[in-house]
């Protein structure tokens, strides 16, 4: 069987990570930022699964970790959206630059 080499998967996850990172840095819209964070988390998930499959096929630690991350990502998304809604209520905007209360 002609297996996909590990490097391909790592390239994919790295690309995904930096796309997420780029979104994180450049977007002002909080929803987009949240989506970028999800991308980063998923790139990590891919890494976990890939390393588990290629390096320790007899174990399942990596898969378990992925499950944890997905669960936390869900919780985090809920929390983040709650924050965003609250911010929107206060500022009528979901632009991060509008929330400057904590600035010096």
């Amino acid at each position: 069987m002609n297996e996909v080499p590990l490097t391909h998967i790592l390239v994919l996850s790295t690309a995904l990570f930096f796309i997420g990172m780029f979104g994180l840095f450049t977007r002002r819209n909080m929803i987009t930022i949240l989506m970028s964070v999800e991308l980063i988390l998923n790139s990590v998930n891919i890494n976990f699964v890939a390393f588990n499959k290629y390096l320790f096929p007899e174990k399942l630690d990596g898969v378990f970790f992925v499950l944890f991350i997905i669960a936390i990502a869900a919780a985090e998304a809920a929390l983040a959206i709650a924050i965003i809604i609250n911010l929107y209520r206060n500022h009528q905007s979901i632009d991060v630059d509008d929330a400057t209360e904590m600035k010096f």
Partner: protein
Amino acid sequence: MNYASYIFLIPLLPLAGFALLGLFGKKYFNESSGIIATVLILVSTLLSLYTAYNYFIAEGIINGAYPSITAFHTSWLSFSKNLSIDIGILIDPISVMMLIVVTFISLMVHIFSLGYMKGEKRFATYYAFLSLFTFSMLGLIISSNLFQIYIFWELVGVSSFLLIGFYFDKPSAVAASKKAFIVTRFADLGFLIGILLLGYYGESFEFSTLIRQLTDVQSSQSIAITTGTFAGISILTWGLILIFIGGAGKSALFPLHIWLPDAMEGPTPVSALIHAATMVVAGVFLVARLFPIFSLSEIALSVITVVGLSSTFIAAVIACTQTDIKRVLAYSTMSQIGFMMFALGMTGTENTLGYTASLFHLFTHAFFKSLLFLCAGTIIHFIHSNEISAMGGLKKYIPLTHLTFLIACLAIAGIPPFAGFFSKEEILLAAYNSNKLVFGIALLTSGITAFYMFRLYFSIFYNKQMEIQNPHSEGSFSIKFPLVVLAICSIVVGFIPFGNFVAADNKILESHLDFRFSFAPVVIGGLSILLAMYFYKNENDKPNKVASFWGKIYQAAFRKFYVDELYIFITKKIIFNFIGRPAAWIDKNIVDGLVNETARTIEKFSYMIKGIQSGKVQHYLLYFFGGIISLLIVFVYLWK
């Protein structure tokens, strides 16, 4: 004889007076405070006389000399094994002699002040200060150790300060009191360093130990202090000269004399007590006390002679030109102290006449000079002015003052048989035996002394005839009594065979007057009196003519040879402007500036970096990410 049973009372009674009057006097017994203080000092005087009787007559000479007795001794503050400040009472001929002088003059001044200061609002305070001074002065003369003498030295200084500034709402009195304190304090700096030097090398502050160890050429202390040198002069000489500076400051010797004429701002009885008879001779007393050590150093003795002689002469010249009666007397005091000082300076190891003569003069001078001041007090009281120009023809108004003043003038001029004659003759004789040049200047000065004293006398009691409407009386009994007593003393104390009591080696010094020698000084004194009479007996313009004839020199003497101006220049201009001001400036601008600058820099820096806290989430993310990357680089690649 057990002196310890009562001698401590002599200084402590005035101290008790001070405490009592100082704390409660003003409130509870302002009026009677004078009596209280006078009674206390009277007891002290009687005890002093009793001591003197016991010491000189009843006990007398033991083993060929008067003994030095330490009547009381206790450790007060100990520093190390050898050095400690002790408090003790030393009884020897000079301290007993001084006890009599101080208590007696103080008693007279206390009595005089009863009338003179009557009606003064701060009557109790005045007597409290007088008592404080008497206590300090008595403590000084019975000191058994160098540090103790320094302690009381400072205390007399401060009592003098308080009394000069007694009329504290007069700016001139305040200035004079400050000046007196600071100038003597400056001199005391020398004294203190001298004490430290002698104490360190002599390994004791105690007079007896110090003298024993330093005069014994074999002792390690003596070797150390004479072989050690600084700037080419032995430590011994340095120490002695420094101590002498302290004495010169207190005794108003040139060039540290500038405070004395100004000190006349104090009440006149105070001038009589402190600035004529007792405190100002403390310097002479100090040198006499340490004389065995002073005699070890030729240089120190020469310094004393030169300083003493120049003070004598300069003060006499200035006295001729002054117009304030008390200032004339002040300069005359300075001149007479100069006499005492150079007499000490010329005392050699063989010929010790100078020592006796000096202390004899101190003794007689106390009586006639305090008398002069008290007379000046009654005159000022009568005229309400210090200026000679406001006086004249007072003979008929205040006859008793006139008579006593005349006696005192004759005494200071050295006319026999008054007291000053005997002591001055001895000094002149001592000078004649040791140095002819000194003798010449001294003789000239004694002529000038007679001249300016009689200038004062004739200007006040003769000269122009003042018409005084409703003259008030000369004064009450308490004013007249001291004048009479002191006048009698000024006549008789000269006949005391002083050499029998006080001599450099505590033995008896045989001295007899040689009347052939006395001839010249007496004639010169007499001529000077005649000269003064010629100028000042009647109102005329001869004095002015002479003054304008001397021109510049007269002006210089009148302005006290510009020493005051020099001091003011040094203190105000140089010390204030070149040391004080820069110090304050540096502190405010450089030292404190650095502190403020540090604070400002930190503030600026925090302003600078506060931009980092932009409030933009993405910026923080960037820092976070950058941080991780750099940590990665550090840990993965650079950390070896």
